[in-house]
């Protein structure tokens, strides 16, 4: 059977989620792999939740079936919880620990440490990273998506090379940001591998 890999990516509008997913998709294409991706536009702007789904290897549908993701990559703690329908006991759960408090007042924002503790009770591979801090260290909070991109490439099962992901990044983002983005990708990679 094909070498397949599904990533569910989620977070909040404006965090660069679609761009990140497109870069992975383009890298997969350049490596000669079959790839499809799904994204939702429209109402997801203006501070709403955003998610994309990427499926590499022989799929026609771009939507990940229940519990079938190999990786859940979340840009925001609470959004990780919202994305849990996609995970199973083997899924790598990588998430940024910096919260973005929604303006809704229906429920109180839970503690991030509590989220991590509860996730670890239920899943084998729970990998919180302080992506926002790493991004600021790399040069700007805007490189958060690159930190998380680096984190994905660190997974042993991820079928793409870091080099091809970097190549696709360069093809999609402005040259003046390349240096910062490279730093961010490396620090994300190290935070998982290291």
């Amino acid at each position, binding site marked *: 059977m094909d070498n397949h890999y599904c990533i569910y990516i989620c977070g*909040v*509008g404006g965090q660069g989620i679609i761009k990140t*997913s*497109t870069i992975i*998709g*383009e890298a997969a*294409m350049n490596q000669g792999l*079959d*790839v*499809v*991706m*799904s*994204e*939702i*536009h*429209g*109402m*997801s*702007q*203006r*501070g*709403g*939740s955003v998610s994309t789904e990427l499926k590499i290897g*022989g*799929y*026609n*549908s*771009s*939507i990940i*079936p*229940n*519990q079938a993701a190999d990786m859940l990559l979340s840009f925001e703690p*609470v*959004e990780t*919880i*919202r994305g*849990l329908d996609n995970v*199973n*006991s083997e899924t790598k759960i990588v998430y940024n620990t910096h919260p973005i*408090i*929604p*303006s*809704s*007042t*229906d*429920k*109180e*924002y*839970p503690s991030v440490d*509590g*989220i991590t503790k*509860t*996730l670890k*009770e*239920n899943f084998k591979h729970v990998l919180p990273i302080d992506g926002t801090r790493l991004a600021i260290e790399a040069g700007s909070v805007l490189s958060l998506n690159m930190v998380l991109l680096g984190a994905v490439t660190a997974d042993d099962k991820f079928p793409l090379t870091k080099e091809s992901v970097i190549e696709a990044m360069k*093809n*999609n983002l402005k040259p003046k940001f390349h240096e910062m983005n490279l730093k961010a990708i490396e620090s994300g990679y190290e935070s998982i591998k290291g």
Partner: protein
Amino acid sequence: MNLKELVTGESGEKQFLLGNEAAVRGVIEAGVSIAATYPGTPSSEIGNVLSVLAKDANIYFEFSTNEKVAMEVAATAAASGLRSFTFMKHVGMNVAADSFMTTAYSGVTGGMVILVADDPSLFSSQNEQDTRNYARIANVPILEPSNCQEVKDMVKYAFDLSEQFGIPVIVRTTTRVSHMRGVVEFGDVNDNSSNNDNHWKRGHFKKDPSKYVPVPAFAGDMHIRLWDKINEIEGISAKSEFNREIDFSDEKSYGLIASSSAYNYAHDVVKFNDLDVNILKLGFSYPFPQDKVVEFIEDLDEVFVVEEVDPIIERDVLAAIGAKNLDVIVHGKLDGTFPLYHEFNSDIVAQGLDKVLNFDEKTAVSYSLGLEELQENIPSRAPVLCAGCPHRAMYYGINLAIEELGLKPEDVIFASDIGCYTLGINPPYNAADYLLSMGSSVGDGCGFSVSTDQKVASFIGDSTFFHSGVSPLINAVHNKHNFVLTVLDNRITAMTGGQPNPGIPVDGMGDEAPEVSIRKLALACGCDYVRVINPFNLEQVVKTYKEAFERNDTAVIISKAPCTLIKGLTKKPPVNFVEGNCNYCDKCVSELACPAISKVDGKITIDKAQCDGCNVCIQVCKYGALEAGR
């Protein structure tokens, strides 16, 4: 990828494209000369991309005032021998339908393709209507791509088909196809270079009233010609490579027929569960390829029909079975195997197939109580009006005016319309009580004003006003209706991603264009009371609404301030919170509800990264605890 690749990309090149971008490449490969649209998600990106690329691609492109006008621009271009393209979201077809129906009768000379994007599960729409019904009402061919490659290929093919038979052709996508990204291999580009000073080619309209003017004497014959075309095209759909069998098994008991995104789910479920089921994928689904379908099902015992929204193919299959007297059981929406509404996914399709085939051994997972509790208690993150949005300021002001007039919320009906401002439905504004369609707020104001003794406030955006608000405003004045119409003129079509509209001095290709004045339009419609207000000036907003609600005619208030997302606006610095002055009345948090203001540990906090410096909160705070930033 650089978007220009869609124009310059060579045959054989591969790109990772959004379905909507693939549609643009299809249009370019087909050599289209004229394209027109009114934006609507999930088709909006086609227009956004075309507006950037039109000149490079020798295409004339416009954002028309509404879908009907876009349909007419495309129809006349095709009647003049040019290839033309129009595209819209599913409900746009309702607006365009009147002219669309006649275009089917009169036919075309150059190829004309209408791409319509359906929205199963209503990600950004008011209904789930199925455009495949329109193909049948009008009797025109329809293609249903399942992925990005097919979007490009089918758009291109649709032009050839349209031109060959002189009939407009529909390409129907769904949200999941328009917003899917996938690998697309480019094909050859048909030359559409211009033969004149414009960058686009000009055609020539050859007069023939018997073909183009549907007076009763001619329209009867047009209908006969339409049927002749469709009967002939059925022979083509029956042989089309877009209708093909994908075999997974030598067994002949079970088969499956699917189209569009539903095919993708069905394919993956059959493939990854090793099911003994062969699939007939229908990409060219009307005229219904009956011979092909009969050939596929005649030896089967049972067939599944997997399609999203209406059971259209399923009914055609049942009719074919009846006509040929076959003995095949059909499992689809009508027998409850699959749901009658909302989009599908692999899980839904697997559940349906499992009812008959019993293969799914999924065991339910269970999580710790702590996780279940966490899942139930996370805060929602629904879309909200942006910090600094002019709509919020206006809603705050009108509610204050209503309160100061001594009116209760139930005394005033808010007839809303479609745009960012529909988000006013949410608390604390509660400013949407009734809504039908784009432009309906004005007609609804007319109806409520004669049907009730309640006050009526209608809200409409600038783009929506141009789309379909003007003729009901004429109705309101002429029939002496009594309501307050607010035009929320934020200088853009914001909801769909920021397209220009006739009220701003730029057109769809980025060229300078005459600005159409909403104020002058309202005056010309005969309104006696027309006021332009700055929504960020709270005192002016409240005073104007109080005045307007006291009147007995159609009062028009134009609330004019730009959407904060427009590029290049000069903004004021974020506001400061002066803790010593705050008396914790909570007004700024609970009544204005700007997302840049929150209450953290009992203290008001301004998110300076979000605050847009609109300074409305300063006017809301009666204690001087919020002050202008420096």
